[in-house]
């Protein structure tokens, strides 16, 4: 019997629940931390970004119409999927970040735990960020957190999996849809994790992941008028200029800080709006 040929994987985009190549037909080479060839990865164009935003906008309505309890279950299932393919994720993180196996295992475990953490938050955000307001009249007055809509995420460049999870899980958990740019030089762990959303009961388009050159895609992301908020954590020294561009369409802007408390609600709070509702007190 002849020797078996390798089945090589081409890493594609994750858009609208499907795995397309870039419409531009471009791809780029990604190398492992040791400098050896790792994979060919799709190089997304501005048009891919535009398509992803259209998909996210449509998906966000379905995602927010699901009950908070159901959103929590779906996120938890994502964690289950990741857990069952943990070894694969460890290998990817190890190659991408050049970690020792033990450190990579710890990093993947923390990333999965963070998904579980956010799956718990879906039906608790309202109690913490919302409330019943005192009013002088026979009315109830409630403040409720509602999602901003479509969030553009520039995922951290160094932390390929943990950083990615931290950036996308929070906005998704409160009912937003996300268009994320994975780390330019270390995109494979994020793509593998995003592929698992296809088997987790997410409506297609809730999490869209683009790989490509960050410098080429961040400006269209920051200026796109149909994106309601941006996480610029992974955009490095461009982040101030991008924040200014984002102001042109009044976006919410979030940037993680080095000394952030992992229990902080700043990120969740950034990507919700407060909706205030009056209701008569019944008999």
């Amino acid at each position, binding site marked *: 019997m002849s020797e078996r040929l390798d089945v090589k994987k081409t890493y594609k985009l994750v858009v609208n629940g499907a795995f397309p190549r870039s419409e531009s037909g471009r791809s780029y080479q990604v190398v492992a931390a040791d400098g050896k060839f790792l994979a060919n990865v799709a190089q997304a164009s501005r048009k891919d*970004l*535009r398509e992803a*935003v259209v998909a996210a*906008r449509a998906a966000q309505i379905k995602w927010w119409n699901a009950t908070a309890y159901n959103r929590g279950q779906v996120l938890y299932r994502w964690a289950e999927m990741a857990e069952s393919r943990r070894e694969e994720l460890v290998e990817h993180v190890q190659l991408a970040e050049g970690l020792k196996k033990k450190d990579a295992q710890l990093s993947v475990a923390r990333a999965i735990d963070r998904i579980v953490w956010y799956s718990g938050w879906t039906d608790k955000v309202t109690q913490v960020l919302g409330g019943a307001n005192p009013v002088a009249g026979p009315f109830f007055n409630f403040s409720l957190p509602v999602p901003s809509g479509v969030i553009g995420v520039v995922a951290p460049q160094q932390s390929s999996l943990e950083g990615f999870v931290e950036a996308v899980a929070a906005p998704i958990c409160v009912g937003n849809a996300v268009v994320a740019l994975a780390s330019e030089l270390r995109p494979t762990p994020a793509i593998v994790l995003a592929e698992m959303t296809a088997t987790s009961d997410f409506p297609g388009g809730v999490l869209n992941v683009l790989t490509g050159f960050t410098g080429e895609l961040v400006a*269209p992301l920051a*200026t*796109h*008028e*149909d994106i309601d908020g941006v996480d610029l954590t992974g955009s490095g020294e461009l982040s101030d200029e991008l924040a200014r561009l984002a102001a042109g*369409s009044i976006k919410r802007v979030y940037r993680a800080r080095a000394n952030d408390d992992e229990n902080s609600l700043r990120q969740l709070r950034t990507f919700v709006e407060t909706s205030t509702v009056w209701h008569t007190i019944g008999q």
Partner: protein
Amino acid sequence: MSIAPLRPVDARDRGILVPAVVSIPTIHNEDELRRYLSALSGVDAVGVESRVAKLSTRSLKKSTKLTAIDLAISMVDLTTLEGADTQGRVTSLCTKAMRPDPSDLAVPAVAAVCVYPDLVAHARRVLGDSPVAVASVATAFPSGRASLSVKLLDVAEAVQAGADEIDMVIDRGAFLAGRWGQVFDEIVAVKAACGSAHLKVILETGELVTYDNVKRASWIAMLGGADFIKTSTGKVGVNATLPFALVMLEAARDFAEQTGQLVGVKVAGGIRTTKDALKYLVVVNETAGATWLTAEFFRFGASSLLNDLLMQRLKQRTGAYVRPDEFSGD
């Protein structure tokens, strides 16, 4: 059978090469029509599709794209043909037709609004003396399943109410059964009922199925006095497609070269994006020629296309992708 009336636009005035002695075919009976249509060459289906595929890969850049978008806007027949249409809806449609983007006066008005006959008078009132024409579907649109007298009354009432353009449907049943003379006679009769109003003849290419049928139907319509030939009603599964449009544009070009008369082409149904619209413009230019690149001879029947054109126009000017709800819905 009657003799087809003459159309006003002379191809020679628009730079089309026409033989010194033009032969305007006069059709006196069904046998003559059948002989005339039998003499037409068949359509090379594979050739049409490969040509369309090739032309679809052309991309327009920068200033060309901006010009093309403005041109496409000026060619739109802004359409609402729903059972749920109201005067209010037609009012907002007409307002949008006159000034598609209120924040930018440089955006041209669309060519026409297209409504059902009972809403023509209202559209006419709202549009006043603006350059936007009122088009009305008639002849028992979209099926065309009514007697000729009912169809003619439908047309007469729409014209009476102030329609500048009439979009009629051909009797596809008669065409497919081979009763071409009946189809021809109906078009001639409707043309007469139109008076000074322009006549657009809807072939409903999705129901004619083959390219050869579309080519024959195009010729029947043009011989019968159509000012425009139109692909579809937008009410059946298959609407306008690039290959059907190419076949019709070739027919219009050949007709102009043989008779010296210019007939327009309107594509309708399913054209929603700027990308699609620009592909059609490329096909028009490469098939019939630049003479047809004007609202006088090429139209898009569409509703949601206009918003996408406006969005792309703004994107080209500002560089930022635009929010879809920047522009009004209907």
